[in-house]
C-alpha cells in the first residue's frame, strides 16, 4: 500500500533521473576530460580550431605519431622534478596525520571523559580556532620562524599543520569517544588500572574506526593545504600544491602548460584512490558532526 502511494509519476522520475545524470556529468566530466587531455599536446588540449581534436589527438599524432603522449608527464616529473614535491607531500602528510592523531586521541578522550565546565570552554575555543582562516595566522609565524631560523623546512610546516588540525580532530574524536560507553574504561579502573592503562588496554583496541575516519580528514587537510605550505616552505622543500601553483607562473610563459596539466592529474590520482577505498568512512565522517549539531 505504502509503496503504491509512493510510486512516482513517469514525468517526475524522468526529471529526477535526468537531474542526477546532469549532476554526474558536472561532477565527473572535468576530471575525465583533463585526464584524457593530459596525454595530448597543448594544441590539442586547447584547440581553438576544432574541439574534437582534444578527443582524437590530431596534433599529437602529427607530433608524436600516436594520439597519446607522455610528454607532459615526462616534463613535469623529470624535467621539473615534480617527484621531489611528491616525496615532500608524502612526508608532510604522513607525519601530520600520525602526530595529530596521537595528540588528538589523548585530548579527545580526556574531553569526553571529564564532566567539568572547562571542557565546554576548551571545545568552544577549539571551535573558534577552527573558524579562523589559517592564512591569518601565517604573518604571526613568519617573524618568529625567521628569528629561530626554522623557516622553509618540512618539520616546521608539519608542526603548524598539526596545530591547525587539532581543533577539528578534537571535535571529531570527542564526539566519537562519547559513543564508547564509559562503563568500559571505568570498570578497568575499578579493577585497578590507572587511567592511562585503561586508555591503553581498553580504549585503544576499540577506537580504530573513529581514528581512521578522523585520520582521513587530517590527511585531506594536509594534502590540500595551500596557504600554509606556500608561505612556510622554501622552494626546494615545496609540496605538490604550492609546486603546482609555482608551475602556473613559470610554465605558462614557457608554453609548457601540459607540464602543469600532468602534475595536476598526478596529484588528483591519490585522492581518487582514497575516495574509492574510504568512501564509507568519508561519508560517515562528514555526517558525524552534523547529526550531533
Amino acid at each position, binding site marked *: 500500500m505504502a509503496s503504491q502511494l509512493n510510486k512516482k509519476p513517469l514525468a517526475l522520475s524522468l526529471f529526477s533521473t535526468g*537531474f542526477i545524470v546532469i549532476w554526474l556529468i558536472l561532477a565527473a566530466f*572535468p576530471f575525465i576530460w583533463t585526464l584524457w587531455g593530459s596525454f595530448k599536446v597543448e594544441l590539442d588540449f586547447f584547440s581553438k580550431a576544432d574541439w574534437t581534436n582534444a578527443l582524437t589527438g590530431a596534433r599529437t599524432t602529427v607530433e608524436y605519431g600516436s594520439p597519446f603522449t607522455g610528454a607532459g608527464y615526462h616534463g613535469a616529473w623529470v624535467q621539473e622534478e615534480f617527484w621531489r614535491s611528491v616525496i615532500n607531500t608524502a612526508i608532510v602528510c604522513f607525519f601530520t596525520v600520525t602526530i595529530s592523531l596521537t595528540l588528538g586521541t589523548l585530548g579527545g578522550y580526556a574531553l569526553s571523559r571529564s564532566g567539568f565546565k572547562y571542557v565546554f570552554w576548551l571545545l568552544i575555543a577549539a571551535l573558534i580556532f577552527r573558524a579562523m582562516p589559517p592564512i591569518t595566522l601565517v604573518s*604571526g609565524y613568519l*617573524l618568529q620562524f625567521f628569528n629561530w631560523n626554522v623557516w622553509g623546512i618540512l618539520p616546521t610546516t608539519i608542526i603548524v599543520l598539526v596545530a591547525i588540525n587539532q581543533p577539528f580532530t578534537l571535535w571529531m574524536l570527542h564526539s566519537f569517544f562519547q559513543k564508547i560507553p564509559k562503563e568500559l574504561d571505568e570498570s578497568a579502573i575499578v579493577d585497578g588500572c590507572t587511567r592511562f592503562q585503561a*586508555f591503553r588496554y581498553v580504549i585503544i583496541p576499540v577506537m580504530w574506526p573513529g581514528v581512521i575516519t578522523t585520520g582521513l580528514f587530517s590527511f*585531506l587537510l594536509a594534502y590540500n593545504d595551500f596557504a600554509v605550505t606556500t608561505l612556510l616552505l622554501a622552494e626546494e622543500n615545496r609540496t605538490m600544491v604550492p609546486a603546482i601553483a609555482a608551475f602556473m607562473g613559470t610554465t605558462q610563459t614557457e608554453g609548457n602548460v601540459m607540464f602543469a596539466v600532468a602534475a595536476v592529474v598526478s596529484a588528483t590520482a591519490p585522492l581518487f584512490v582514497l575516495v574509492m577505498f574510504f568512501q564509507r568512512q568519508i561519508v560517515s565522517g562528514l555526517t558525524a558532526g552534523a547529526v550531533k549539531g
Partner: protein
Amino acid sequence: MRHSTFFWFFLPTGLAMLLFIAFPIVSVISQSVFTPHEAVFVESENCGPFGCTTETTIDQDATAALREAKPLGQFVGLQIYLDRGHLATSEVAAAWRSTDSMGAFFKTINNLPFYRAMGFTLTYTFTVTPLLIILGFAIAVAVNSLHRHLKGLVIFFSLLPMIVTPLIGSLILFWMVDSRGVLGNFLQWMADDPDLSLKASTGLTWIMLIVYGVWHSAPFAFVVFYAGLQTLPQDTLESSRIDGATRWQQIRYVVIPHIMPLVTFVALIQIMDNFRVLEPIIGFNAEAHARSLSWIILNDLNGETQLLSSAATTSVLTILGVSILLSPVLVRTWRDFNSKA
C-alpha cells in the same frame, strides 16, 4: 576524570594549539600596531675647497641598537588600520563629503582595496552558501529515490569535486573555460561571440568563481542531507500521504523541517570556509577582477618585501569578520549549554 589526569592527557594538544594558534594570534595583533623601525640617518657635512655638501648615510650601529632595544618596532597604534590599504578612514570621509549620491559613494569606496576585497568576499560567501545548500538538497532528494545499487556509484562521483584539492579543482575548471578550452569554445558558440572570454569581465569572473564554489561545496551539503534523509520519520511521511499531501507538500512540510538543523550546520561550516576563499582566485588567475581578504594577506606576505604589518592588520580585520559572522552560533551554543546544565 581527575583534574591532574585530564591535564596530562590534554597537555600535548593544548600546547600545540596554544603555541601555534593562540600565540600567533597575539603576535599578529601586536604586529598590526607596530611598524618596523626606519633606518637611523646621520647627516654629515663635508667641507672641501668647493664649498660644503651634506651627505646622508645610514647609521648602522644606531639602527641595530634601536632594533635591539625595541624588537617589536615602532608603536603606531591604529595608524595601519586607518591607512589607505585597510580601513581608509580619511578616503571614506572624503568620499562621503564629495559625492552626492549613494551610488557614487559606493563606487568610490569600491576602489579602495580593502573594501573591494570585503565586497567580493561577502558576495562570494552569501551567494555560494545558499546556492550550494539548494543544489545539495536537490541532489540528495534525487539520489535518495535511486535504486540501491546505483547510489554508491553516484555518491562516489559526487564526492570528487569536494575531495579534490581546491587549487587543483579550480585549475581543472579554469583550463576548460579558457577561451581555447572546451567549455570556453562552447560558450563562445552559444553566445555567438568568438571573442567572448570569461576572464575579461569582472561580472563573468565573479560568476565563474561562484559557480566553482557551488561545484566544490555542493557535495558536502549533499552528503549531510542524504544522511539526514535516511533518518526521516516514515510514519509521519506516510500519514501525510494518507492525508492527501502532494509530493511537494511532503517535502515542504515533512522533509524540510526534519533536516532544518542540518541546514544550519551546513550553512555554518560553509560560511566559515567560503569566507576564507583564496585558492580559486589563484587557480582561475582572477586577481585582476576579484580579490578576497585572504588573497590580500597572501599578496602582502608573498611579495619581494614582506609587508608583515599590513598583512597582520588585514588578518586581524578578517578574524573580526569571521567572529561577527559566527557570533550567532556561539550565542546559541552558549544557550544550549546553559539550558542543559
